Protein backbone atom coordinates (compact mmCIF):
# COMPACT_ATOMS: atom_id res chain seq x y z
CA UNK A 1 0.00 0.00 0.00
CA UNK A 2 2.77 2.32 0.97
CA UNK A 3 4.66 1.71 -2.25
CA UNK A 4 1.59 2.20 -4.36
CA UNK A 5 0.78 5.51 -2.73
CA UNK A 6 4.34 6.64 -3.18
CA UNK A 7 4.32 5.65 -6.84
CA UNK A 8 1.16 7.65 -7.40
CA UNK A 9 2.68 10.64 -5.68
CA UNK A 10 5.82 10.35 -7.78
CA UNK A 11 3.79 10.06 -10.99
CA UNK A 12 1.77 13.15 -10.06
CA UNK A 13 4.92 15.08 -9.31
CA UNK A 14 6.56 14.07 -12.59
CA UNK A 15 3.38 14.85 -14.49
CA UNK A 16 3.28 18.38 -13.11
CA UNK A 17 6.95 19.05 -13.81
CA UNK A 18 6.65 17.75 -17.37
CA UNK A 19 3.48 19.73 -17.95
CA UNK A 20 5.31 22.92 -16.95
CA UNK A 21 8.10 22.12 -19.39
CA UNK A 22 5.64 21.35 -22.16
CA UNK A 23 3.90 24.69 -21.65
CA UNK A 24 7.27 26.45 -21.65
CA UNK A 25 8.30 24.62 -24.81
CA UNK A 26 5.06 25.63 -26.48
CA UNK A 27 5.51 29.36 -25.82
CA UNK A 28 7.92 30.07 -28.70
CA UNK A 29 5.62 28.19 -31.05
CA UNK A 30 2.58 30.10 -29.84
CA UNK A 31 4.54 33.31 -30.28
CA UNK A 32 5.34 32.24 -33.84
CA UNK A 33 1.72 31.57 -34.78
CA UNK A 34 0.38 34.67 -33.04
CA UNK A 35 3.01 36.89 -34.69
CA UNK A 36 2.17 35.48 -38.07
CA UNK A 37 -1.37 36.80 -37.62
CA UNK A 38 -0.51 40.34 -36.56
CA UNK A 39 -0.20 43.54 -38.54
CA UNK A 40 3.33 44.88 -38.77
CA UNK A 41 2.46 48.02 -36.73
CA UNK A 42 0.94 45.86 -34.00
CA UNK A 43 4.39 44.37 -33.48
CA UNK A 44 5.75 47.72 -32.38
CA UNK A 45 2.66 49.20 -30.79
CA UNK A 46 2.83 49.72 -27.05
CA UNK A 47 1.47 48.50 -24.71
CA UNK A 48 2.15 45.18 -26.36
CA UNK A 49 -0.74 42.81 -26.82
CA UNK A 50 -0.50 39.05 -26.80
CA UNK A 51 -3.11 38.43 -29.45
CA UNK A 52 -3.79 40.32 -32.66
CA UNK A 53 -6.82 42.63 -32.71
CA UNK A 54 -8.05 40.81 -35.74
CA UNK A 55 -6.13 37.91 -37.28
CA UNK A 56 -4.54 38.94 -40.57
CA UNK A 57 -4.83 35.81 -42.68
CA UNK A 58 -3.50 37.78 -45.59
CA UNK A 59 0.01 37.29 -44.19
CA UNK A 60 -0.20 33.67 -45.22
CA UNK A 61 -1.10 34.66 -48.74
CA UNK A 62 1.76 37.15 -48.86
CA UNK A 63 4.23 34.64 -47.44
CA UNK A 64 3.41 32.45 -50.39
CA UNK A 65 3.35 35.06 -53.13
CA UNK A 66 6.08 37.53 -52.11
CA UNK A 67 8.91 35.10 -52.81
CA UNK A 68 7.39 32.55 -55.18
CA UNK A 69 7.21 30.07 -52.35
CA UNK A 70 5.91 27.24 -54.51
CA UNK A 71 9.03 27.19 -56.65
CA UNK A 72 11.39 26.96 -53.67
CA UNK A 73 9.19 24.32 -52.09
CA UNK A 74 9.54 22.18 -55.21
CA UNK A 75 13.29 22.84 -55.27
CA UNK A 76 13.60 21.76 -51.65
CA UNK A 77 11.63 18.60 -52.36
CA UNK A 78 13.74 17.70 -55.39
CA UNK A 79 16.96 18.11 -53.44
CA UNK A 80 15.58 16.20 -50.49
CA UNK A 81 14.73 13.21 -52.64
CA UNK A 82 18.05 13.45 -54.49
CA UNK A 83 19.81 13.34 -51.15
CA UNK A 84 17.61 11.00 -49.12
CA UNK A 85 17.45 8.07 -51.54
CA UNK A 86 21.23 7.55 -51.92
CA UNK A 87 21.77 8.43 -48.24
CA UNK A 88 19.40 5.70 -47.10
CA UNK A 89 20.66 3.12 -49.59
CA UNK A 90 24.34 3.83 -49.09
CA UNK A 91 23.99 3.73 -45.29
CA UNK A 92 21.93 0.55 -45.49
CA UNK A 93 24.50 -1.11 -47.78
CA UNK A 94 27.35 -0.08 -45.51
CA UNK A 95 25.53 -1.27 -42.39
CA UNK A 96 24.91 -4.59 -44.13
CA UNK A 97 28.57 -4.89 -45.11
CA UNK A 98 29.68 -4.21 -41.54
CA UNK A 99 27.23 -6.63 -39.99
CA UNK A 100 27.49 -9.56 -42.41
CA UNK A 101 30.85 -9.56 -44.16
CA UNK A 102 33.39 -9.10 -41.44
CA UNK A 103 36.87 -9.35 -42.84
CA UNK A 104 40.13 -8.34 -41.24
CA UNK A 105 39.93 -4.70 -42.35
CA UNK A 106 36.24 -4.19 -41.49
CA UNK A 107 37.02 -2.75 -38.09
CA UNK A 108 39.39 -0.19 -39.54
CA UNK A 109 36.74 0.92 -42.02
CA UNK A 110 34.16 1.13 -39.29
CA UNK A 111 36.42 3.41 -37.28
CA UNK A 112 36.84 5.46 -40.44
CA UNK A 113 33.06 5.85 -40.67
CA UNK A 114 32.88 6.97 -37.06
CA UNK A 115 35.80 9.34 -37.50
CA UNK A 116 33.93 11.22 -40.22
CA UNK A 117 31.71 12.48 -37.42
CA UNK A 118 34.62 14.60 -36.26
CA UNK A 119 35.10 16.45 -39.52
CA UNK A 120 33.55 19.92 -39.38
CA UNK A 121 31.21 20.32 -42.35
CA UNK A 122 32.87 23.49 -43.57
CA UNK A 123 36.28 21.84 -43.75
CA UNK A 124 34.94 19.76 -46.62
CA UNK A 125 32.32 22.04 -48.12
CA UNK A 126 34.36 25.21 -48.52
CA UNK A 127 37.19 23.57 -50.53
CA UNK A 128 34.58 21.62 -52.47
CA UNK A 129 33.00 24.91 -53.39
CA UNK A 130 36.35 26.28 -54.53
CA UNK A 131 37.14 23.18 -56.60
CA UNK A 132 33.67 23.09 -58.12
CA UNK A 133 33.59 26.75 -59.08
CA UNK A 134 37.04 26.33 -60.60
CA UNK A 135 36.06 23.45 -62.86
CA UNK A 136 32.76 25.10 -63.69
CA UNK A 137 30.66 22.43 -61.99
CA UNK A 138 28.38 24.85 -60.21
CA UNK A 139 24.64 25.05 -59.88
CA UNK A 140 24.35 21.28 -60.25
CA UNK A 141 21.81 19.38 -58.21
CA UNK A 142 23.78 16.18 -58.85
CA UNK A 143 25.97 17.20 -55.95
CA UNK A 144 23.16 16.26 -53.55
CA UNK A 145 23.27 12.73 -54.87
CA UNK A 146 26.99 12.44 -54.17
CA UNK A 147 26.45 14.01 -50.77
CA UNK A 148 23.89 11.29 -50.14
CA UNK A 149 26.35 8.56 -51.08
CA UNK A 150 28.65 9.62 -48.28
CA UNK A 151 25.93 8.38 -45.95
CA UNK A 152 25.09 9.24 -42.36
CA UNK A 153 27.46 7.66 -39.82
CA UNK A 154 24.82 7.31 -37.13
CA UNK A 155 22.47 5.59 -39.56
CA UNK A 156 25.19 3.22 -40.76
CA UNK A 157 25.67 2.26 -37.14
CA UNK A 158 21.91 1.86 -36.72
CA UNK A 159 21.60 -0.40 -39.77
CA UNK A 160 24.50 -2.50 -38.60
CA UNK A 161 22.64 -3.11 -35.34
CA UNK A 162 19.42 -3.95 -37.16
CA UNK A 163 21.09 -6.45 -39.49
CA UNK A 164 22.89 -8.08 -36.58
CA UNK A 165 19.57 -9.05 -35.04
CA UNK A 166 18.53 -11.04 -38.14
CA UNK A 167 19.56 -14.71 -37.94
CA UNK A 168 22.12 -15.91 -40.47
CA UNK A 169 19.93 -18.87 -41.42
CA UNK A 170 17.69 -16.55 -43.44
CA UNK A 171 20.41 -15.86 -45.96
CA UNK A 172 21.95 -19.28 -45.88
CA UNK A 173 18.81 -21.01 -47.04
CA UNK A 174 18.44 -18.44 -49.82
CA UNK A 175 22.04 -18.99 -50.82
CA UNK A 176 21.40 -22.73 -50.99
CA UNK A 177 18.63 -21.97 -53.44
CA UNK A 178 21.17 -20.17 -55.57
CA UNK A 179 20.24 -16.53 -54.87
CA UNK A 180 22.93 -13.93 -55.64
CA UNK A 181 24.11 -11.36 -53.12
CA UNK A 182 21.84 -8.59 -54.41
CA UNK A 183 18.86 -10.90 -54.58
CA UNK A 184 19.47 -11.90 -50.98
CA UNK A 185 19.84 -8.31 -49.95
CA UNK A 186 16.80 -6.87 -51.70
CA UNK A 187 14.44 -9.82 -51.35
CA UNK A 188 15.23 -10.91 -47.83
CA UNK A 189 17.30 -8.48 -45.81
CA UNK A 190 16.06 -5.08 -46.95
CA UNK A 191 12.36 -5.74 -46.19
CA UNK A 192 13.35 -6.75 -42.65
CA UNK A 193 14.86 -3.38 -41.80
CA UNK A 194 11.90 -1.16 -42.70
CA UNK A 195 12.03 0.55 -39.31
CA UNK A 196 15.64 1.48 -39.99
CA UNK A 197 14.65 2.88 -43.36
CA UNK A 198 12.01 5.05 -41.70
CA UNK A 199 14.47 6.41 -39.14
CA UNK A 200 17.05 7.01 -41.88
CA UNK A 201 14.43 8.68 -44.07
CA UNK A 202 13.36 11.07 -41.33
CA UNK A 203 16.96 12.02 -40.62
CA UNK A 204 17.81 12.48 -44.28
CA UNK A 205 14.69 14.56 -44.84
CA UNK A 206 15.38 16.71 -41.81
CA UNK A 207 19.00 17.31 -42.80
CA UNK A 208 18.37 18.15 -46.38
CA UNK A 209 15.33 20.28 -45.54
CA UNK A 210 17.28 22.41 -43.09
CA UNK A 211 20.63 22.47 -44.88
CA UNK A 212 21.78 26.05 -45.36
CA UNK A 213 25.41 25.96 -46.40
CA UNK A 214 25.18 23.68 -49.43
CA UNK A 215 22.44 25.52 -51.32
CA UNK A 216 23.79 28.96 -50.44
CA UNK A 217 27.20 28.07 -51.87
CA UNK A 218 26.34 25.82 -54.76
CA UNK A 219 22.99 26.87 -56.19
CA UNK A 220 21.73 29.94 -57.99
CA UNK A 221 18.54 31.63 -56.85
CA UNK A 222 16.67 29.73 -59.55
CA UNK A 223 17.46 26.40 -57.85
CA UNK A 224 17.66 27.67 -54.29
CA UNK A 225 15.75 26.17 -51.38
CA UNK A 226 13.27 27.13 -48.70
CA UNK A 227 15.96 27.05 -46.01
CA UNK A 228 17.68 29.95 -47.77
CA UNK A 229 14.47 31.92 -48.21
CA UNK A 230 13.54 31.42 -44.57
CA UNK A 231 17.00 32.48 -43.40
CA UNK A 232 16.67 35.64 -45.51
CA UNK A 233 13.16 36.22 -44.22
CA UNK A 234 11.02 38.87 -45.87
CA UNK A 235 11.68 42.58 -46.19
CA UNK A 236 9.79 45.52 -47.63
CA UNK A 237 11.12 48.13 -50.07
CA UNK A 238 12.67 50.15 -47.23
CA UNK A 239 14.53 47.07 -46.05
CA UNK A 240 12.43 46.63 -42.93
CA UNK A 241 12.21 42.99 -41.99
CA UNK A 242 8.60 41.79 -42.17
CA UNK A 243 8.52 39.57 -39.12
CA UNK A 244 4.84 38.70 -39.36
CA UNK A 245 5.07 37.40 -42.91
CA UNK A 246 8.36 35.71 -42.05
CA UNK A 247 6.62 33.77 -39.29
CA UNK A 248 3.88 32.71 -41.70
CA UNK A 249 6.61 31.48 -44.04
CA UNK A 250 8.17 29.51 -41.18
CA UNK A 251 4.81 27.89 -40.45
CA UNK A 252 4.69 26.68 -44.06
CA UNK A 253 8.33 25.65 -43.94
CA UNK A 254 7.99 23.51 -40.82
CA UNK A 255 4.62 21.94 -41.68
CA UNK A 256 6.04 19.08 -43.80
CA UNK A 257 8.42 18.19 -40.97
CA UNK A 258 5.61 18.30 -38.43
CA UNK A 259 3.46 16.15 -40.64
CA UNK A 260 6.13 13.52 -41.28
CA UNK A 261 7.18 13.46 -37.67
CA UNK A 262 3.69 12.96 -36.28
CA UNK A 263 2.76 10.43 -38.93
CA UNK A 264 5.80 8.30 -38.25
CA UNK A 265 6.88 9.19 -34.74
CA UNK A 266 5.79 5.93 -33.12
CA UNK A 267 7.94 3.86 -35.45
CA UNK A 268 10.68 6.48 -35.44
CA UNK A 269 11.11 6.48 -31.68
CA UNK A 270 10.66 2.73 -31.47
CA UNK A 271 13.30 2.27 -34.17
CA UNK A 272 15.75 4.54 -32.42
CA UNK A 273 15.19 2.83 -29.10
CA UNK A 274 15.30 -0.70 -30.49
CA UNK A 275 18.13 -0.58 -32.96
CA UNK A 276 20.59 2.15 -32.45
CA UNK A 277 21.16 2.30 -28.79
CA UNK A 278 21.95 -1.17 -27.69
CA UNK A 279 25.54 -1.41 -28.69
Amino acid at each position, binding site marked *: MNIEARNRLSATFRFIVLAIFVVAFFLPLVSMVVTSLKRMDELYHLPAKVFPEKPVWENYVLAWTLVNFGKYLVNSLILTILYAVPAIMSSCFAGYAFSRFQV*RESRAFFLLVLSTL*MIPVMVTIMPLYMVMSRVGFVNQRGLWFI*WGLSGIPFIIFLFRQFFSTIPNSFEESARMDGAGRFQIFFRIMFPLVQTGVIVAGIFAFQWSW*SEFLMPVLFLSDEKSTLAIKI*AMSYADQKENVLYNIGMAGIVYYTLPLVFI*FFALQKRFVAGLLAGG*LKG
Partner: protein
Amino acid sequence: MAAITRLGASPLERHKRVSFYIFLAPWLLGFLLLQVVPIAWGFVISLTNRSAFPVEIKFVGLKNYITLFKDTEVLSSYWVSFVYTVANTLIGVVTGFIFALLLDRELPGRGFFRTILYFPYMIPLVAVGWIFRIFLERDTGFLNILLVRLGLLSTGVPWMQQSPMGSILLLSFWQAGWSMIIFLGALSTVPRELYEVATIDGAGYGRRMRHIMLPLISPFIFFQLVMSFIYAMQAFIQPYIMNPRVIRGNWVMLNPPPNDIFFVMSRAYYIISGQHKFAYGMAMLWVLFAFVLVLTILFVKFGGFWVYTEADEKR
Protein backbone atom coordinates in the same frame (compact mmCIF):
# COMPACT_ATOMS: atom_id res chain seq x y z
CA MET B 1 41.40 -6.27 -56.75
CA ALA B 2 44.80 -7.93 -56.75
CA ALA B 3 45.15 -7.30 -53.05
CA ILE B 4 41.74 -8.77 -52.46
CA THR B 5 42.49 -12.05 -54.20
CA ARG B 6 45.88 -12.32 -52.56
CA LEU B 7 44.50 -11.89 -49.08
CA GLY B 8 41.50 -14.12 -49.58
CA ALA B 9 42.72 -17.46 -48.34
CA SER B 10 39.63 -19.61 -48.69
CA PRO B 11 36.94 -19.18 -51.35
CA LEU B 12 34.46 -18.37 -48.60
CA GLU B 13 36.74 -15.69 -47.18
CA ARG B 14 37.18 -14.27 -50.66
CA HIS B 15 33.45 -14.21 -51.30
CA LYS B 16 33.03 -12.39 -48.01
CA ARG B 17 35.64 -9.80 -48.84
CA VAL B 18 34.24 -9.16 -52.31
CA SER B 19 30.77 -8.73 -50.81
CA PHE B 20 32.11 -6.40 -48.16
CA TYR B 21 33.64 -4.07 -50.72
CA ILE B 22 30.67 -4.25 -53.05
CA PHE B 23 28.29 -3.13 -50.33
CA LEU B 24 30.68 -0.55 -48.97
CA ALA B 25 31.43 0.86 -52.41
CA PRO B 26 28.77 3.62 -52.53
CA TRP B 27 29.86 4.95 -49.16
CA LEU B 28 33.53 4.73 -50.13
CA LEU B 29 32.84 6.66 -53.33
CA GLY B 30 30.98 9.40 -51.48
CA PHE B 31 33.62 9.48 -48.78
CA LEU B 32 36.45 9.92 -51.29
CA LEU B 33 34.70 12.50 -53.46
CA LEU B 34 33.09 14.55 -50.75
CA GLN B 35 35.48 14.23 -47.85
CA VAL B 36 38.98 13.00 -48.61
CA VAL B 37 39.55 15.05 -51.76
CA PRO B 38 38.11 18.37 -50.47
CA ILE B 39 39.85 18.04 -47.12
CA ALA B 40 43.22 17.49 -48.74
CA TRP B 41 42.58 20.27 -51.26
CA GLY B 42 41.53 22.60 -48.47
CA PHE B 43 44.76 21.97 -46.64
CA VAL B 44 46.77 22.73 -49.78
CA ILE B 45 44.81 25.97 -50.22
CA SER B 46 45.55 26.98 -46.66
CA LEU B 47 49.25 26.94 -47.52
CA THR B 48 48.83 29.43 -50.37
CA ASN B 49 47.71 33.01 -50.79
CA ARG B 50 44.55 32.10 -52.71
CA SER B 51 41.67 34.55 -52.69
CA ALA B 52 38.69 35.23 -54.91
CA PHE B 53 40.72 37.69 -56.95
CA PRO B 54 42.86 36.46 -59.81
CA VAL B 55 46.26 37.18 -58.32
CA GLU B 56 49.27 34.99 -58.88
CA ILE B 57 48.89 32.02 -56.55
CA LYS B 58 51.96 31.40 -54.48
CA PHE B 59 52.87 28.79 -51.94
CA VAL B 60 53.35 30.63 -48.66
CA GLY B 61 53.92 27.75 -46.27
CA LEU B 62 52.57 28.25 -42.78
CA LYS B 63 52.22 32.02 -43.10
CA ASN B 64 48.43 31.94 -42.81
CA TYR B 65 48.66 29.86 -39.68
CA ILE B 66 51.18 32.22 -38.12
CA THR B 67 49.04 35.26 -38.93
CA LEU B 68 46.06 33.46 -37.49
CA PHE B 69 47.65 32.93 -34.11
CA LYS B 70 48.41 36.65 -33.91
CA ASP B 71 44.94 37.73 -34.99
CA THR B 72 43.17 38.54 -31.73
CA GLU B 73 39.72 38.62 -33.33
CA VAL B 74 40.15 35.15 -34.77
CA LEU B 75 41.54 33.81 -31.51
CA SER B 76 38.58 35.27 -29.66
CA SER B 77 36.31 33.34 -32.01
CA TYR B 78 37.88 30.06 -30.93
CA TRP B 79 37.39 31.02 -27.32
CA VAL B 80 33.78 32.09 -27.88
CA SER B 81 33.03 28.83 -29.69
CA PHE B 82 34.64 26.86 -26.93
CA VAL B 83 32.65 28.60 -24.19
CA TYR B 84 29.46 28.12 -26.18
CA THR B 85 30.29 24.45 -26.73
CA VAL B 86 30.87 23.70 -23.06
CA ALA B 87 27.69 25.50 -22.02
CA ASN B 88 25.63 24.00 -24.83
CA THR B 89 26.85 20.49 -24.07
CA LEU B 90 26.06 20.80 -20.37
CA ILE B 91 22.64 22.33 -20.96
CA GLY B 92 21.71 19.75 -23.58
CA VAL B 93 22.93 16.74 -21.64
CA VAL B 94 21.51 17.81 -18.28
CA THR B 95 18.12 18.84 -19.68
CA GLY B 96 17.87 15.72 -21.81
CA PHE B 97 18.82 13.57 -18.85
CA ILE B 98 16.23 15.16 -16.56
CA PHE B 99 13.51 14.70 -19.19
CA ALA B 100 14.52 11.08 -19.65
CA LEU B 101 14.45 10.46 -15.91
CA LEU B 102 10.99 11.99 -15.64
CA LEU B 103 9.74 9.92 -18.55
CA ASP B 104 11.43 6.63 -17.78
CA ARG B 105 8.71 5.16 -15.59
CA GLU B 106 4.98 4.69 -16.10
CA LEU B 107 3.14 7.96 -16.38
CA PRO B 108 -0.16 9.07 -17.89
CA GLY B 109 0.45 10.81 -21.22
CA ARG B 110 4.02 9.56 -21.46
CA GLY B 111 3.99 9.25 -25.25
CA PHE B 112 2.53 12.74 -25.59
CA PHE B 113 5.21 14.31 -23.37
CA ARG B 114 7.96 12.49 -25.19
CA THR B 115 6.68 13.64 -28.57
CA ILE B 116 6.23 17.26 -27.57
CA LEU B 117 9.59 17.54 -25.83
CA TYR B 118 11.34 15.99 -28.82
CA PHE B 119 9.49 18.09 -31.35
CA PRO B 120 11.53 21.35 -31.21
CA TYR B 121 14.57 19.37 -32.28
CA MET B 122 12.83 18.72 -35.61
CA ILE B 123 12.56 22.42 -36.45
CA PRO B 124 15.42 23.63 -38.66
CA LEU B 125 17.85 26.07 -37.08
CA VAL B 126 17.21 28.81 -39.61
CA ALA B 127 13.60 28.84 -38.47
CA VAL B 128 14.40 28.45 -34.78
CA GLY B 129 16.66 31.49 -34.94
CA TRP B 130 13.86 33.70 -36.24
CA ILE B 131 11.30 32.23 -33.86
CA PHE B 132 13.49 33.15 -30.89
CA ARG B 133 14.43 36.50 -32.33
CA ILE B 134 10.79 37.43 -32.06
CA PHE B 135 10.16 35.54 -28.85
CA LEU B 136 12.93 37.48 -27.07
CA GLU B 137 12.13 40.91 -28.54
CA ARG B 138 12.25 43.69 -25.93
CA ASP B 139 8.83 45.28 -26.10
CA THR B 140 6.59 42.87 -27.89
CA GLY B 141 8.33 39.55 -27.35
CA PHE B 142 6.20 36.89 -25.76
CA LEU B 143 8.69 36.18 -23.00
CA ASN B 144 8.76 39.79 -21.82
CA ILE B 145 5.01 40.24 -22.04
CA LEU B 146 4.59 37.13 -19.94
CA LEU B 147 7.19 38.04 -17.34
CA VAL B 148 5.78 41.56 -17.00
CA ARG B 149 2.21 40.26 -16.64
CA LEU B 150 3.34 37.79 -14.01
CA GLY B 151 4.97 40.68 -12.21
CA LEU B 152 8.45 39.19 -12.43
CA LEU B 153 9.73 42.12 -14.45
CA SER B 154 8.68 45.75 -14.41
CA THR B 155 9.67 46.44 -18.01
CA GLY B 156 10.82 44.29 -20.90
CA VAL B 157 14.46 43.26 -21.04
CA PRO B 158 16.32 43.36 -24.37
CA TRP B 159 17.53 39.76 -23.97
CA MET B 160 19.45 39.46 -27.19
CA GLN B 161 21.30 42.72 -26.64
CA GLN B 162 21.95 42.17 -22.97
CA SER B 163 23.02 38.55 -23.25
CA PRO B 164 23.51 37.43 -26.83
CA MET B 165 25.25 34.23 -25.78
CA GLY B 166 22.53 33.39 -23.27
CA SER B 167 19.89 33.90 -25.95
CA ILE B 168 21.65 31.49 -28.28
CA LEU B 169 22.05 29.00 -25.45
CA LEU B 170 18.31 29.10 -24.91
CA LEU B 171 18.07 27.18 -28.19
CA SER B 172 20.20 24.39 -26.70
CA PHE B 173 17.63 24.06 -23.97
CA TRP B 174 14.72 24.12 -26.36
CA GLN B 175 16.29 21.51 -28.61
CA ALA B 176 17.37 19.07 -25.90
CA GLY B 177 14.96 16.46 -27.27
CA TRP B 178 17.70 14.58 -29.02
CA SER B 179 19.62 14.00 -25.78
CA MET B 180 16.37 12.97 -24.18
CA ILE B 181 15.80 10.23 -26.77
CA ILE B 182 19.34 8.93 -26.39
CA PHE B 183 18.98 8.80 -22.61
CA LEU B 184 15.54 7.21 -22.77
CA GLY B 185 17.09 4.47 -24.86
CA ALA B 186 19.92 4.21 -22.38
CA LEU B 187 17.60 3.95 -19.38
CA SER B 188 15.56 1.26 -21.09
CA THR B 189 18.66 -0.95 -21.16
CA VAL B 190 18.91 -0.95 -17.35
CA PRO B 191 17.35 -4.19 -16.05
CA ARG B 192 14.41 -3.41 -13.72
CA GLU B 193 15.30 -6.31 -11.43
CA LEU B 194 18.44 -4.52 -10.35
CA TYR B 195 16.35 -1.65 -8.96
CA GLU B 196 14.00 -4.05 -7.24
CA VAL B 197 16.81 -5.99 -5.61
CA ALA B 198 18.43 -2.76 -4.46
CA THR B 199 15.13 -1.47 -3.09
CA ILE B 200 14.65 -4.64 -1.08
CA ASP B 201 18.17 -4.20 0.24
CA GLY B 202 17.06 -0.78 1.44
CA ALA B 203 18.69 1.51 -1.12
CA GLY B 204 16.88 4.83 -1.61
CA TYR B 205 16.37 6.62 -4.92
CA GLY B 206 19.64 8.52 -4.69
CA ARG B 207 21.70 5.44 -4.04
CA ARG B 208 19.96 3.42 -6.72
CA MET B 209 20.74 6.19 -9.14
CA ARG B 210 24.37 6.52 -8.16
CA HIS B 211 25.26 2.87 -7.93
CA ILE B 212 23.06 1.25 -10.56
CA MET B 213 21.68 3.64 -13.12
CA LEU B 214 24.58 6.03 -13.60
CA PRO B 215 27.26 3.36 -14.06
CA LEU B 216 25.10 1.43 -16.49
CA ILE B 217 24.23 4.38 -18.67
CA SER B 218 27.62 6.10 -18.40
CA PRO B 219 28.69 4.96 -21.91
CA PHE B 220 25.67 6.82 -23.33
CA ILE B 221 26.42 9.95 -21.34
CA PHE B 222 29.97 9.78 -22.61
CA PHE B 223 28.82 9.31 -26.22
CA GLN B 224 26.43 12.22 -25.89
CA LEU B 225 29.09 14.51 -24.43
CA VAL B 226 31.48 13.72 -27.28
CA MET B 227 28.90 14.16 -30.03
CA SER B 228 27.52 17.32 -28.56
CA PHE B 229 31.03 18.77 -28.31
CA ILE B 230 31.76 18.01 -31.96
CA TYR B 231 28.50 19.48 -33.20
CA ALA B 232 28.53 22.59 -31.05
CA MET B 233 32.04 23.54 -32.16
CA GLN B 234 30.50 23.78 -35.62
CA ALA B 235 27.69 26.15 -34.69
CA PHE B 236 27.39 28.59 -37.53
CA ILE B 237 24.08 30.17 -38.43
CA GLN B 238 22.74 31.07 -34.97
CA PRO B 239 24.84 34.24 -34.44
CA TYR B 240 23.78 35.61 -37.83
CA ILE B 241 20.07 35.21 -37.28
CA MET B 242 20.16 36.05 -33.58
CA ASN B 243 22.41 39.01 -34.25
CA PRO B 244 21.64 41.55 -31.49
CA ARG B 245 22.12 44.38 -33.97
CA VAL B 246 19.18 45.50 -36.05
CA ILE B 247 18.81 43.36 -39.15
CA ARG B 248 17.96 45.33 -42.27
CA GLY B 249 17.10 44.08 -45.70
CA ASN B 250 16.82 40.43 -46.36
CA TRP B 251 20.25 38.99 -46.36
CA VAL B 252 21.22 38.16 -42.80
CA MET B 253 24.63 36.84 -43.79
CA LEU B 254 25.85 40.31 -44.74
CA ASN B 255 25.96 41.68 -41.22
CA PRO B 256 28.72 40.19 -39.10
CA PRO B 257 27.56 39.55 -35.54
CA PRO B 258 29.42 41.17 -32.60
CA ASN B 259 32.62 39.53 -31.41
CA ASP B 260 31.18 38.00 -28.27
CA ILE B 261 29.05 35.60 -30.30
CA PHE B 262 31.12 35.40 -33.48
CA PHE B 263 31.75 31.63 -33.56
CA VAL B 264 34.68 30.10 -35.46
CA MET B 265 32.52 28.73 -38.24
CA SER B 266 30.54 31.94 -38.55
CA ARG B 267 33.73 33.95 -38.85
CA ALA B 268 35.32 31.48 -41.27
CA TYR B 269 32.26 31.80 -43.47
CA TYR B 270 32.49 35.57 -43.30
CA ILE B 271 36.22 35.57 -44.10
CA ILE B 272 35.82 33.19 -47.03
CA SER B 273 32.62 34.34 -48.63
CA GLY B 274 32.39 37.93 -47.37
CA GLN B 275 36.03 39.00 -47.50
CA HIS B 276 37.09 36.44 -50.11
CA LYS B 277 40.21 35.44 -48.19
CA PHE B 278 40.01 31.77 -49.16
CA ALA B 279 43.39 30.63 -47.91
CA TYR B 280 43.12 32.40 -44.57
CA GLY B 281 39.63 31.05 -43.99
CA MET B 282 40.78 27.54 -44.80
CA ALA B 283 43.66 27.84 -42.35
CA MET B 284 41.13 28.87 -39.74
CA LEU B 285 38.95 25.86 -40.48
CA TRP B 286 41.92 23.54 -40.36
CA VAL B 287 42.90 24.78 -36.94
CA LEU B 288 39.33 24.11 -35.82
CA PHE B 289 39.49 20.63 -37.34
CA ALA B 290 42.76 19.87 -35.55
CA PHE B 291 41.37 21.25 -32.30
CA VAL B 292 38.23 19.11 -32.49
CA LEU B 293 40.24 16.05 -33.48
CA VAL B 294 42.83 16.38 -30.73
CA LEU B 295 40.31 17.20 -28.04
CA THR B 296 38.02 14.35 -29.03
CA ILE B 297 40.86 11.85 -29.07
CA LEU B 298 42.15 13.07 -25.72
CA PHE B 299 38.67 12.94 -24.30
CA VAL B 300 37.97 9.44 -25.59
CA LYS B 301 41.34 8.25 -24.39
CA PHE B 302 41.56 9.85 -20.95
CA GLY B 303 38.14 11.33 -20.30
CA GLY B 304 36.43 7.99 -20.09
CA PHE B 305 37.87 6.79 -16.79
CA TRP B 306 34.48 7.12 -15.09
CA VAL B 307 32.68 5.14 -17.77
CA TYR B 308 31.58 1.72 -16.63
CA THR B 309 32.34 -1.16 -18.99
CA GLU B 310 31.72 -4.86 -18.76
CA ALA B 311 35.48 -5.38 -18.75
CA ASP B 312 35.75 -3.71 -15.32
CA GLU B 313 33.35 -6.21 -13.96
CA LYS B 314 35.36 -9.19 -15.17
CA ARG B 315 38.54 -7.80 -13.71
